[in-house]
């Protein structure tokens, strides 16, 4: 393997932070705190950093909770394989957070419907929708309120971009959020 290939891809895609491997809570914390420090050192705006921090947490915790091949440790701690990158889109001149993980095939429609609905809402409607969901708790489960995508959309400057990819009978979910 030629490591310079990876370095070149990262430079081309404007990637400032990347991870591929088993994602856990302690690693999530380490990654978002590190990315936050990095952006602070670059003198980025505080609001941008806060949005980045919150979106990255939601994406990583989604991977941990919904990944097809998650491992459960100590009863309630999950680790799941996934990929996350934070980069700068040179054309849009915006930061983005992009992640990927394998999902259960039967979750595909549910996830699409959820995100399509969120993408149909404007910012003020999203704020209202989140409050409704918090009150009704209809998507609540053991580990979350089922509102992570709404939170990502609230923090994003564009609609949520997502797609699914099938590789060797495995279904991967990709999500990209621009800040």
């Amino acid at each position: 393997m030629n490591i310079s290939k990876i370095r070149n891809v990262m430079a081309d895609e404007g990637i400032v932070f990347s991870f591929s491997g088993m994602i856990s809570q302690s690693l999530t914390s380490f990654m978002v705190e590190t990315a936050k420090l990095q952006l602070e050192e670059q003198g980025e705006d505080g609001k941008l950093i806060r949005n980045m921090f919150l979106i990255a947490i939601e994406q990583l915790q989604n991977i941990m909770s919904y990944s097809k091949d998650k491992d459960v440790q100590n009863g309630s701690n999950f680790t799941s394989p996934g990929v996350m990158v934070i980069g700068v889109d040179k054309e849009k001149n915006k930061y983005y957070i992009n992640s990927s993980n394998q999902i259960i095939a039967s979750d595909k429609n549910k996830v699409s419907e959820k995100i399509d609905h969120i993408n149909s809402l404007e910012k003020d409607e999203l704020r209202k929708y989140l409050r409704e969901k918090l009150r009704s708790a209809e998507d609540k489960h053991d580990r979350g309120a089922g509102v992570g995508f709404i939170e990502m959309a609230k923090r994003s400057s564009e609609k949520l971009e997502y797609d699914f990819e099938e590789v060797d009978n495995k279904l991967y979910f990709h999500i990209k959020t621009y800040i």
Partner: protein
Amino acid sequence: MENLKIEATQYTPEIDFNSQSSVLSIVGKSYPENTFEYYKPIVNWIEEYLKTINDELLRVNLDLEYLNSSSLKAYFDLFDLLEIAHDEGKNIQIKWIYDEENDISEETGEDFIADFKSLDIELVIKG
């Protein structure tokens, strides 16, 4: 009741209750993975405490810099609990404390005020 003290971690806040002064203060970041499990003993403790008080004032100071979406739900449920206690005649004052530049936290505080109209919630800019 005894004092309650839970130290902060990198992703959970410091929780401190002083039974002498009746002040519950929660300060820091909150983005654990198993949020409801994490907050359950704290919520249970608050429920028990509310049973022991009559008309003495309980002050709740919340200074939460970052909340993940499951923590938002956990605090929504805490406000629910406090609202029920308030409606039963308990005397509760809540301060939602935030950094002037943190408009996300300010907005969260505004939403709590809008959703829990009968509760006494004050937005306080950190000095």
